[in-house]
């Protein structure tokens, strides 16, 4: 409403303060679900038009939607939940955001301060429950402190290593009147250093000059650092000619079409990427954290390399892998300085060594580790993704995923040219993430193509969000690779548990087309490879949410694979490239 005089500072109720603080933070969208303990805030939301509220169908959906919004925009995502069950439903999403370092601000209602501790209706110790799954959290007991706390919450969520924060607001604090002083009232203490140590940066520049087999190993930290970091990374790779790989979290920071791109590394990473990590003499880790899905067996990890590690979080350094050149700082700032120092020293590299290294990498590449045996009878999941890639790669496209084989295939077969275009649950591996995340992304980018690459089992975990997608006319495309299996579980059981397929079937699946229709959306089913392109085009052409039930080969395994506890050079390969590596590898595993 225009013409209405909005109070922006001074005395106001806590509930009004919440809305004003969100406004002052530039928040345009919140995801949430009302309940008794947040009614005053919902009343204020009702009486304004600056902030859109998206009513999800489950609080877990609100948090993942906020994550999707955050990851695709670089801005913090915001969610509002009620006390008790509302807050406990948020726990999975908070943990997901913590492990993937996603900035989100969750506001939870709480029973009135005078009832805290009395086991009141819908009372839960929300700050206690969420303490280990947030970067920080607050229980606000006085309305006078609400405004400064909310601004502090945004600050903490976004500064340093980003992460989820939660502000628990008792109902009486929302009703009471207090003073609000705007953004500047937050305490200014929390300020993690962003500038890297000059001596260490110089040491890295020197190591780059003499390295014969260097590799950049990059992660989500590059994307979190912002677009400037991705740009500097591209400059650095172009200037040095060093090959580059990335974690699942970091895809898009360096373009998949880039000359030096090795593809993703790790458990289901590409052969050339993992072999390069194993064989390198200089590893430059940028904003990644040596997760166990990346390193494989620690004592066999990259045995002959000097490791440099750039990270904004000091606790990431030397946590799992010994680092020779630790650099604590913001990726963009450190890369800028590194480029400067290395340039000032004459932009030297060991060209001869590099040429040999590139030749070696070329041999590994030639193995064509993603080759698979296609079929004209049944849709191979890899083929489905190749076609999806071919038909969408030139569009303004965002991809989210669920968790399982389909997620790994999506990472392998889809190409990401820019940061913030790929949203997947990496650290926590949360089935049910992708659908609500796609809703958050579509809210932030109404005109863009948003596709959730899903497995049928994961997708069912938050399928209630179909209601949200239809209500807000969000044309999210749910591309379900339906193998009627908990495919990734089935794969492990095949390879590691003697083919005893304990509980890894998807029984009693819904008819996805009818399900879509029941929600007022469009359903498409496709099972013949010959029909696939047309079906995908039909999905893309439809202006509204679509559930695409892509019936794929049920027993396909995802390769390459480094089995748990194995080293990078002990990869299992797909059936096409090395038929008996599976037998040999499989035998060892039993």
């Amino acid at each position: 409403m225009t013409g209405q005089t909005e109070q922006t500072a001074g005395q106001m109720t806590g509930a009004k303060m919440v809305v004003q603080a969100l406004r002052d933070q530039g928040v345009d969208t919140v995801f949430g679900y009302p309940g008794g303990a947040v009614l005053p805030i919902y009343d204020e939301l009702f009486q304004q038009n600056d902030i859109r509220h998206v009513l999800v169908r489950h609080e877990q959906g609100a948090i993942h939607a906020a994550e999707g919004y955050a990851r695709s925009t670089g801005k913090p995502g915001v969610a509002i939940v009620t006390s008790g069950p509302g807050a406990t439903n948020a726990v999975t999403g908070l943990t997901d955001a913590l492990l993937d370092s996603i900035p989100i601000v969750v506001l939870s209602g709480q029973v009135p301060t005078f009832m805290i501790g009395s086991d009141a209706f819908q009372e839960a110790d929300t700050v206690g429950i969420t303490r280990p799954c947030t970067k920080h959290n607050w229980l606000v007991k006085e309305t006078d402190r609400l405004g400064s706390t909310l601004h502090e919450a945004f600050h903490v969520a976004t500064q340093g290593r980003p992460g989820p924060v939660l502000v628990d607001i008792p109902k009486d604090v929302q009703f009471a009147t207090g003073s609000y002083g705007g953004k500047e009232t937050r305490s200014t203490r929390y300020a993690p250093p962003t500038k890297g140590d000059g001596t260490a940066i110089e040491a890295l520049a020197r190591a780059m000059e003499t390295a014969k087999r260097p590799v950049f190993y990059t992660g989500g930290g590059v994307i979190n650092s912002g677009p400037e970091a991705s740009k500097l990374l591209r400059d650095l790779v172009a200037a040095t000619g060093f090959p580059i790989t990335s974690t699942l979290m970091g895809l898009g920071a360096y373009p998949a079409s880039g000359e030096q791109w090795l593809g993703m590394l790790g458990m289901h990473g590409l052969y050339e990427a993992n072999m390069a990590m194993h064989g390198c003499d200089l590893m430059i880790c940028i904003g990644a954290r040596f997760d166990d899905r990346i390193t494989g067996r620690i004592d066999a990890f990259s045995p002959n390399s000097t490791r440099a590690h750039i990270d904004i979080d000091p606790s990431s350094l030397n946590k799992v892998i010994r680092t020779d050149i630790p650099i604590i700082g913001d990726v963009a700032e450190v890369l800028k300085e590194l480029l400067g120092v290395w340039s000032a020293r004459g932009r030297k590299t060991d060209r001869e060594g590099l040429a040999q290294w590139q030749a070696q990498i070329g041999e590994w590449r030639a193995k064509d580790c993603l080759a698979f045996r296609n079929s004209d009878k049944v849709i191979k999941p890899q083929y489905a993704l190749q076609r999806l890639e071919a038909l969408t790669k030139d569009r303004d496209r965002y991809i989210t995923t669920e968790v399982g084989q389909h997620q790994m295939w999506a990472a392998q077969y889809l190409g990401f040219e820019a940061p913030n275009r790929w949203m997947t649950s990496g650290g926590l591996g949360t089935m049910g993430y992708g659908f609500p995340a796609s809703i958050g992304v579509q809210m932030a980018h109404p005109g863009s193509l948003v596709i959730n690459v899903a497995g049928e089992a994961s997708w069912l975990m938050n399928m209630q969000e179909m209601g949200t997608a239809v209500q807000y006319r969000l044309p999210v495309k749910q591309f379900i690779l339906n193998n009627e299996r908990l495919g990734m579980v089935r794969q492990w059981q095949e390879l590691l548990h003697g083919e005893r397929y304990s509980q890894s079937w998807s029984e009693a699946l819904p008819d996805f087309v009818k399900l879509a229709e029941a929600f007022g959306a469009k359903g498409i089913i496709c099972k013949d490879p010959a029909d696939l392109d047309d079906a995908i085009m039909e999905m893309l052409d439809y202006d509204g949410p679509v559930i695409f039930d892509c019936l794929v080969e049920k027993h396909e395994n995802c390769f390459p694979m480094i089995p748990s506890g194995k080293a990078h050079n002990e990869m299992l390969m797909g059936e096409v490239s090395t038929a008996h590596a599976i037998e040999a590898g499989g035998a060892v595993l039993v």
Partner: protein
Amino acid sequence: MLNIKAGSTSHSAYNLRSVYSDVEERHTLAVIVENEPGVLARVIGLFSGRGYNIESLTVAEIDHTGHMSRITLVTSGTPQVIEQIKAQLGRIVPVHEVHDLTVEGPTVERELALFKVRGEGDARVEALRLADIFRANVVDSTLESFVFEITGTPEKIDAFADLMRPLGLIELARTGVAALSRGPDSRV
């Protein structure tokens, strides 16, 4: 590349220590925190959640107007684990400073303990005599019991407890360690 820090253990003959050694060390940390609700739970939750040891932990407000508390923490682990503990503590938002007193130089460490010893005859006399040697004070007495107050290093208190046990020690309360660096300067 070996990351060697000078003067890093109080009990090393060489004052050298590799961050990648497998030898467990005992370190005393001073953690300066904002005195806000839940801050102790955060620190303790970090130790339990990540499986680190707490040998002793004391906390009290040290600056009322500035709302600051000091946590003195004794922990043990390999050098790599100790470094990780410090980095993890530093990540907690209301933690202002983390000082590894063991690495930063010589320290004084003191603990206070109260001992209730019950007995008669020779045992009672012997307890009182030993208390005197240990400079313990009698803070409560009845015809059949004493409560001793003793201050000292944890080792001294351990030694006193070993002696009191056969003499009728029935109850013991210890505060845990408080520690400061020696010398005229403050690093905190």
